[in-house]
């Protein structure tokens, strides 16, 4: 890999304050019976240089949370009144379009899952990376092109000067994902949001891309919000993990603590359900049922229908995110009533 000059940038936020702070984020969609909430009361922070993984299964609200950070929620979805998102001390939700655009792409960038649909098919990949530079800086056409080529080399594309002149369809999936990463990182943003960046890729190519993200993160000091359903990727990449279920944060913990002391029954179930290499256990543990649609969530705890430990209180009172240890919280009544962690016979899988 050729080296590029991606220097650490000075954070513009006050010392000690998080780079990104999300508070009571809600996203609603109109539905037959009123509105359905895809994201409900989500709060978290990300510090400079930190890698936070947002984990959960389809429909849990993780992608919608990510899109909210860039104010890209697809209509008719709306970010609820009362939600707060602060980035480098600025409130993103009250920002006018022009200053928002200058943050988006320049200080905060996104990498999508499917690079074929996120790239413009009629522009060369070099033009697309150069365009990001030209939109956000006063660089000349030639300088922007040169920077694009350097960046394409920096993400591990061999012979970047020639590749820059190619169109997306001429590149493989792994190459296209590298181009997406080059576009996201060319202006050295402080925060990169990556939504399932390796899900569509083969495992050996995934290994290359994760290695690249780690290396760029360590070199530039960027913060990374990585959205994934793969707990293996989480274990490799995260410093902190946020688990979502039914639009809510159900558990939040430093990565070691999450894997060693998973507390929410959903997290516990997910960890038990993943197949592992070299494991001799043949029968997988399962979580009964499937994720309920946002329009048909149960009362009280949203996981109780599938929970092996559910008791009467779970049906009437939605638990708060309760503190378990340093930086470790779970949305479960078991935190207060640990003696209830006894599987009911019909729910244990």
């Amino acid at each position: 890999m050729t080296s590029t000059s991606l220097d650490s940038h000075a954070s513009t936020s006050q010392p000690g304050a998080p780079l990104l702070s999300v508070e009571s984020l809600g996203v609603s969609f109109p539905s037959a019976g009123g509105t359905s909430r895809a994201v409900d009361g989500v709060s978290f922070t990300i510090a400079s240089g930190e890698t936070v993984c947002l984990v959960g299964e389809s429909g849990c609200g993780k992608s919608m949370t990510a899109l909210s950070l860039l104010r890209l929620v697809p209509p008719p979805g709306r970010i609820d009144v009362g939600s707060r998102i602060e980035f480098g001390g600025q409130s993103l939700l009250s920002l006018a379009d022009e200053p928002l655009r200058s943050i988006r792409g320049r200080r905060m960038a996104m990498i999508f899952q499917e690079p074929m649909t996120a790239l413009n098919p009629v522009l060369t990949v070099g033009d697309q990376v150069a365009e990001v530079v030209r939109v956000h800086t006063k660089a000349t056409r030639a300088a922007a092109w040169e920077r694009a080529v350097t960046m394409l080399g920096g993400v591990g594309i061999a012979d970047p000067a020639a590749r820059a002149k190619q169109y997306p369809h001429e590149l493989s999936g792994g190459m296209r994902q590298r181009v997406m990463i080059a576009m996201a990182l060319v202006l050295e943003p402080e925060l990169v949001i990556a939504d399932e960046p390796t899900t569509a890729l083969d495992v050996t190519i995934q290994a290359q891309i994760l290695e690249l993200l780690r290396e760029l993160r360590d070199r530039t000091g960027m913060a990374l919000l990585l959205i994934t359903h793969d707990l293996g990727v989480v274990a490799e990449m995260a410093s902190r993990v946020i688990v979502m279920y039914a639009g809510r944060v159900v558990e939040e913990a430093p990565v070691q603590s999450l894997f060693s002391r998973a507390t929410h029954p959903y997290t516990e179930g997910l960890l038990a359900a993943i197949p592992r290499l070299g494991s001799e256990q043949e029968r997988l543990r399962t979580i009964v049922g499937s994720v309920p649609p946002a329009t048909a969530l149960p009362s009280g705890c949203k996981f109780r229908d599938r929970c092996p430990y559910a008791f009467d209180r779970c049906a009437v009172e939605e638990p708060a995110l309760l503190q378990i240890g340093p930086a470790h919280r779970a949305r479960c009544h078991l935190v207060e009533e640990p003696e209830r962690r006894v599987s009911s016979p019909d729910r244990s899988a």
Partner: protein
Amino acid sequence: MTAPLLRVENLTKHFPIHGGMLRRVTGAVRAVDGVSFDIGAGETLALVGESGCGKTTTGRTILRLVEPTAGSITFDGTDIRALRGESLRRMRRRMQIVFQDPYGSLNPRMTVGAAIREGLIVHRIAEGAEADARVARLLDEVGLRAEVASRYPHEFSGGQRQRIGIARALAVEPAFIVCDEPVSALDVSVQAQVVNLLRDLQRQRGLSYLFIAHDLAVVAHMADRLAVMYLGRIVELAPRRALFASPLMPYTQALLSAVPVPDPGAKRGRLLLQGEPPSPANPPSGCVFHPRCPHPAKDAACSRIVPPLEEKAPGHWVACIKQPPTTVSDAVQRDAGATRSPERYLPLFSHHNHPAP
């Protein structure tokens, strides 16, 4: 040993490439290139590999959903390639397939009950009330309530649709099922349910599976033996434990080491491959993996000799002339330009994370 239920020999599928003004055949995509394996009764053979390695085409060719270019397929003593019309249809009753995307494979305008009944009627297994009773039993067997028979596919979640796809395949009482990425589209919690269901059904009915998947961890829970494909060829074939504990083909080693381990404390060594697989329209000469191979004894012979799939340990077949023992002698290798002798190469796989063979 009794004859295997399915025997595939030298199976080949080349898709023609047309070019020029006259659309003449100018080349071929060698999707499957001389693949051989057996599957015993009640056994699961997993076919693993990355996109474009030919695993899906192999599965479809066996069922003759895609016509093979060459090779033989023998199922329960019958040559599948010789069958036509009615006899092919009768054989299809015994060989079924479950697809990755259950939504795409179910007719949206047919109720679930009708979709499952169809096979019963076509193959004259049952009709009328008897067919209804069988549909109800099948739904129960895959963990769905009998009432769902009157509903349509869109009313179900992905996991439920996969259960319906399995019930439909089981309706005609097959002995063998090609499972083509059956859980890849499902969430982890639901994936585990379907993996367990497939295992239970196998035990109860004595089914044989060809389990096609790219997720090695899922395969670890399903397979008795694994065949690893790369660019249309099987490069390694071994019992599950041997393959995970001591993979001998450097490609298999890289593939296994690339799987992220869901344990933040795990020591990970990784064999990071450079570049990407070449196109099957223009595969490399000799060993198809040689341009990316990290084996320390790799030399010119690797680009000139097509490595035979040879048995390096009991039941453990590997296509690599540099991994001893090999039937390709030093003299033959030297004639092909070899400068190095074969040597045992087993990086990353000696530590205790993996069970001993």
